[in-house]
């Protein structure tokens, strides 16, 4: 086997293993979330408990997103942005998970019950 091809395979393995480790860290150490925190333009605007089913309209400078909380999961079902990527996101329920809508600078992040950690920097 050519040396470069062997190095390619090593590179792929290293990347795959590090992705797996990162994923394990994220999924093992993130407890089930308690609140969905809404952040618009870097500032927290609201938080909703995941235990209650709700539907809210999040207004931002450039548009809106509809956030639906159902059966302990938060999901964006409708948005004003042209690409609609935030609608394609899977629903989130674990602490640390996020839904991002870049055009509206809106982020939904799930935080755990015991931690009062605010993900906004």
């Amino acid at each position, binding site marked *: 086997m050519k040396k*470069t091809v062997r190095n*390619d395979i090593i590179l792929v393995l290293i990347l*795959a293993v590090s*992705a797996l480790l*990162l*994923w394990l860290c994220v999924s093992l150490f993130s407890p089930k979330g308690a609140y969905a925190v809404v952040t618009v333009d870097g500032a927290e605007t609201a938080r909703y408990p995941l235990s209650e089913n709700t539907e809210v309209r999040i207004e931002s400078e450039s548009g809106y997103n509809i956030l639906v909380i159902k059966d302990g999961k938060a999901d964006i079902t409708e948005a004003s942005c042209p690409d609609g990527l935030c609608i394609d996101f899977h629903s989130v329920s674990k602490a640390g*998970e996020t839904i991002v809508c*870049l*055009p509206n600078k809106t982020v939904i992040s799930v935080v755990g019950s015991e931690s009062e950690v605010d993900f906004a*920097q």
Partner: protein
Amino acid sequence: MRVKTRSVALMGVCVAFAMILSYVESFIPSPVYGVKIGLPNIVTVYLLYKCGAARAGAVSVVRVILTALLFGSVMSLIYSLAGAFLSLSVMVILKKTNLFSKVGVSIAGGVSHNIAQLAVAVAITGVGAVAYYLPTLVLGGVVAGIVVGIAGATVIKRV
């Protein structure tokens, strides 16, 4: 003089071709949010090996700006520029080491492209938890890099 004319014409064709590829790619649904194949990078890989880093970089920047003007937004311009800049830098450095084949270089390019875009997302939204997508984006970058690398290597061999 003739050589220069030829080179300018080739760069123009490459920009046009890369733009067509990015348009075509917009019709391919993304399996996971943020993960794309990055078809225009086939042109970047081709130029990097055939005409050098400077021309590959110039064509990338022109293509990114024109594509953003035609189909995108200011936000997508910042995104794409960050991705293109980091991935090309990484590919140039790895190509110089001669340690990897074209596919390996392209894989590193794909992964660094996604990391740059995630970094921009963290900077714009100000939410560190966006890093949750890092594993997905690393794997997506690997797969995209393999596809682009094989396509790029084939084009280099035949054109």
